[in-house]
C-alpha cells in the first residue's frame, strides 16, 4: 500500500501561514508610510501658519523670535553648492578610476574599504576634523570654505559609491563593442559608459545634496553662525544655515517658547527643500534615461 499524505490538513496549514506572513509584511510596510506621513503632517500643520513671503525673504528679528529665515536659506544653498563643487568632481573621478581602471585590483579594494569606513564615521567627528584641519591648521577660520570642505568630505563616500555602482551596472558588452571599433578606453568611458550611467549617477548626486543640506554637526564648528542677519560677501564669511538655525532656536535661542512657531516654519522649509531636491532627482533620472536611448 502506498503511504497517504493527509493533504487537506497540511494544505490548510501552508495557506494559513502564508496568509499571516503576508499580512504582517504588508502592515509593516504600510506602517513605514504612515510614520512618514505623520511626521510630514505634524511639521506642515505646525509650520504652515508661519510661512509667508516675509518669512522667506527677511532676516530674523527681535532675538530670532520674529522676522524670517532668509539668511539661513541662502546659507544652506551656499553650503550645498560649495560642498558639491568639491565632492562631485573628486568623487566622480575616483569612482571612474575604481570601476574602469583599477577594477578588482588591490588599490581599488583598499579605496573601497576606506570609503566605506569613511561613510560610517559619525558626522560630528567630521565637524571636529573640519575644525581642526580647515578652520585652524589651514587658517580658513569659521567660513563657507571650511564648512563646504567639511560637508564635501562627508558626502564624498556617497558620491564615489554612487558613481562606482552606476558604472558597474553597465554591461561589459557595451565597453567591448566600443573598444572593438578602435575607440580608446577614455573615449569608451566618455561616449558610451558615462552617458549610460549618467541617469543613475545624477540621482545619487542629488540625493547626496539632500543629505548635505540637512546636516548640522559638520557645520557646527566650521561655518554656522548663531545669528548673522546679513548675507556673506566672500567664501571666508560665516553664514547661518537651516538645520543649525532650527537647533539654535529650539534649544538655546533668546526665547525658546516665543520662537517655537519659527522653529516649525524652519523645519517645514528644510523638509520642502529636501523633498523638492528628491523630486528633482527622480525627474532628471526619467528625463536622462529617455534621452540617453535616442540621441
Amino acid at each position, binding site marked *: 500500500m502506498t503511504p497517504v499524505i493527509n493533504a487537506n490538513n497540511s494544505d490548510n496549514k501552508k495557506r494559513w501561514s502564508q496568509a499571516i506572513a503576508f499580512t504582517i509584511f504588508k502592515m509593516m510596510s504600510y506602517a513605514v508610510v504612515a510614520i512618514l506621513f505623520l511626521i510630514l503632517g505634524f511639521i506642515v500643520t505646525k509650520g504652515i501658519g508661519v510661512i509667508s513671503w516675509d518669512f522667506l525673504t527677511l532676516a530674523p528679528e527681535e532675538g530670532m523670535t520674529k522676522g524670517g529665515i532668509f539668511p539661513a536659506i541662502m546659507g544652506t544653498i551656499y553650503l550645498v553648492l560649495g560642498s558639491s563643487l568639491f565632492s562631485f568632481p573628486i568623487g566622480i573621478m575616483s569612482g571612474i578610476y575604481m570601476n574602469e581602471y583599477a577594477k578588482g585590483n588591490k588599490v581599488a579594494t583598499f579605496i573601497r574599504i576606506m570609503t566605506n569606513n569613511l561613510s560610517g564615521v559619525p558626522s560630528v567627528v567630521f565637524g571636529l576634523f573640519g575644525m581642526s584641519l580647515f578652520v585652524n591648521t589651514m587658517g580658513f577660520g569659521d567660513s563657507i570654505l571650511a564648512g563646504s570642505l567639511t560637508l564635501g568630505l562627508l558626502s564624498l563616500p556617497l558620491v564615489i559609491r554612487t558613481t562606482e555602482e552606476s558604472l558597474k551596472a553597465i554591461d561589459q558588452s557595451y565597453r567591448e563593442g566600443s*573598444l572593438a571599433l578602435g575607440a580608446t578606453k577614455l573615449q569608451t568611458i566618455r561616449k558610451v559608459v558615462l552617458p549610460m550611467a549618467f541617469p543613475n549617477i545624477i540621482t545619487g548626486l542629488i540625493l547626496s545634496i539632500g543629505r548635505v543640506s540637512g546636516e548640522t554637526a559638520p557645520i557646527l564648528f566650521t561655518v554656522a553662525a548663531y545669528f548673522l542677519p546679513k548675507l556673506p560677501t566672500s567664501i571666508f564669511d560665516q553664514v547661518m544655515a537651516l538645520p543649525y538655525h532650527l537647533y539654535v532656536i529650539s534649544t538655546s535661542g533668546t526665547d525658546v517658547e516665543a520662537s517655537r512657531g519659527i522653529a516649525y516654519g524652519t523645519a517645514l522649509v528644510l523638509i520642502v527643500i529636501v523633498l523638492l531636491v528628491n523630486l528633482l532627482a527622480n525627474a532628471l533620472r526619467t528625463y536622462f534615461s529617455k534621452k540617453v536611448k535616442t540621441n
Partner: protein
Amino acid sequence: MLTIDAKNVDFYYSEFHALKNINIEVEKNKVVALIGPSGCGKSTFLRLLNRMNDLIDGTRMTGQVLIEGKDIYAPGIHVDELRKEVGMVFQKPNPFPKSIFENVAYGLKVNGIKDKTFIEERVIESIKSAALWDEVKDKLNKSAFALSGGQQQRLCIARALAISPKVVLMDEPASALDPISTAKIEDLIHELKKDYTIMIVTHNMQQASRVSDKTAYFYLGELIEYDDTIKIFTNPTEISTQNYITGRFG
C-alpha cells in the same frame, strides 16, 4: 600574403592552458568557421585576433599572430589601430544607446574623422552592406534599441564595416537570433566575403557548413583539424572531428 597567420600560439588564463600550439593560416576573402564544444578555446582564439583578451587580467600568450604580415603582439603596436583593421561582431547584439545613424558613425568619429559628408556616405553605405537599409532608411535618427534583435545584430555588423576593416570576427553572431534573422546573417556573410576576410565562431554545424570555406575544429584547447569545409564535413581525417560533427561526441 596571408591575411591571418597564427604561429605556435599558446594562451593561458592564469594557470589554465587554454590554447595549445595553434597554427592557422587564412587567405584573403575566405570565411573560416571555428567549431568545437564549449570551452574548447575557439572564442579565445577569435578574441586573440583583435586583442580583446587584453581586457582580461592574468592572461598570457606566446607565439605569433600576423595580420597581413604584421605581428599584432609586437611591442609598439597600438591596439586601437589594430582594432580598426580587425572588426568584431559579438554574440549578443550590443548597439550603443544612440540613434541608428550615430551607432554606425561611432567608429568613424572615435577615429578622428570629422568630415560630415564622408561620415554620412559611409554610414549609408555600411547599412546597405549589412542588408539593413530598407528596414531603417526612414528612421536613422531613432534609437537603435527600438530595432528587433536581428536588426540590431545587422546594425552591429554595419557598425563594424563602417571603419573598413580587413578582417571581420564574428563570435556566434546568430546564436541569440530566430531562424529568419539567422538566415539573413548567413546570406550577409556570403556577400561580405567579397570584400572582407571573415572568421566566425559557431555552435551550429549546419551554419558552419553553409557559410564557410574552411573549418577549424577545436577540442580541449587544441586545433584537431583544419581543412576545407567540404572535407571536414564529408571526410574528416580525425575520428574526434567525425564524432563531433555527427553529434556522437563524447
